[in-house]
C-alpha cells in the first residue's frame, strides 16, 4: 500500500492542475495548471514502467539484473517535447494578449479590439 505513493502523487498533481485551470483567472496560472496536469500524466507513465529493483534499460556499463521497461520512458520523452512546444505557443499568445488588452485577467480580455 505505502509503495503506491507515486499514484497518489499523480492524483495530487492532476487535481492541483485542474483546480488552477478551472478556478484561477490569471492566464499564466492557467498555463501553469496545464503543465501541472502534464507532469502528473508523465509521472503516471514513468511509474508504470518501473519494476522492483530494476536498473535503467541501457547495456553500456550495466551492472546486470532486471531492467525497467523502456517504452514508457520513450513515451514520456515524446510527451515532454510536445509539452514544451505547446507551452511555447501558449506563452506567445499570452504575450500578444497582454499587448492588446494590457491585462492577464480572463474576465477583462476578449472585448473589442
Amino acid at each position, binding site marked *: *500500500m505505502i*509503495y*503506491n*505513493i*507515486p*499514484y*497518489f502523487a499523480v*492524483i495530487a498533481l492532476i*487535481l492541483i492542475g*485542474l*483546480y488552477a485551470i*478551472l*478556478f484561477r483567472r490569471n492566464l499564466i496560472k492557467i498555463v501553469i495548471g496545464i503543465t501541472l496536469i502534464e507532469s502528473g500524466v508523465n509521472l503516471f507513465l514513468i*511509474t*508504470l*514502467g*518501473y*519494476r*522492483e529493483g530494476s536498473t*535503467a*534499460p*541501457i*547495456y*553500456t556499463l550495466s551492472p546486470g539484473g532486471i*531492467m525497467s*521497461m*523502456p*517504452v514508457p*520512458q*520513450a513515451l514520456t*520523452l*515524446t510527451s515532454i*517535447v*510536445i509539452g*514544451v*512546444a*505547446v507551452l*511555447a*505557443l501558449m506563452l*506567445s*499568445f499570452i504575450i*500578444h494578449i497582454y499587448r492588446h488588452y494590457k491585462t492577464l485577467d480572463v474576465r477583462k480580455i476578449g472585448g473589442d479590439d
Partner: protein
Amino acid sequence: MNKRDFLALAFLTVIAVFLVFSVVFMFDEDLHPFGEPTENDMDQYIIDNTQTETGADNGVTSVVFDYRGFDTLGEATVLFTAVAGVILVFRRLKK
C-alpha cells in the same frame, strides 16, 4: 470564503475522494501495484532484442528511433510546428 471558491473546493474534493478510493480499492483487480507490472511481453521483447535488432546499447533510444521511430518523426514535427507558429505569431505585419 465566497460561493465560487466553495464550489471549487467541493468539486475537487469529490473528484479527489473518487480517485483516491479507486486507487486504494481497485488495485488487485486492474491496476498493478507500483513496481510489479505483470503484463510486460512487449517491453521484455524490446529489452531482449535491442542489441541484436537495432544495434543500440540504450534501450530507450532503440525504442525512440527504431521501434517507434515514426512517433519521433511526429515529435520532431511538433517542435517544428511550434517554431513555425511562434515565428508566425511574432511576424512583422507590414511588408
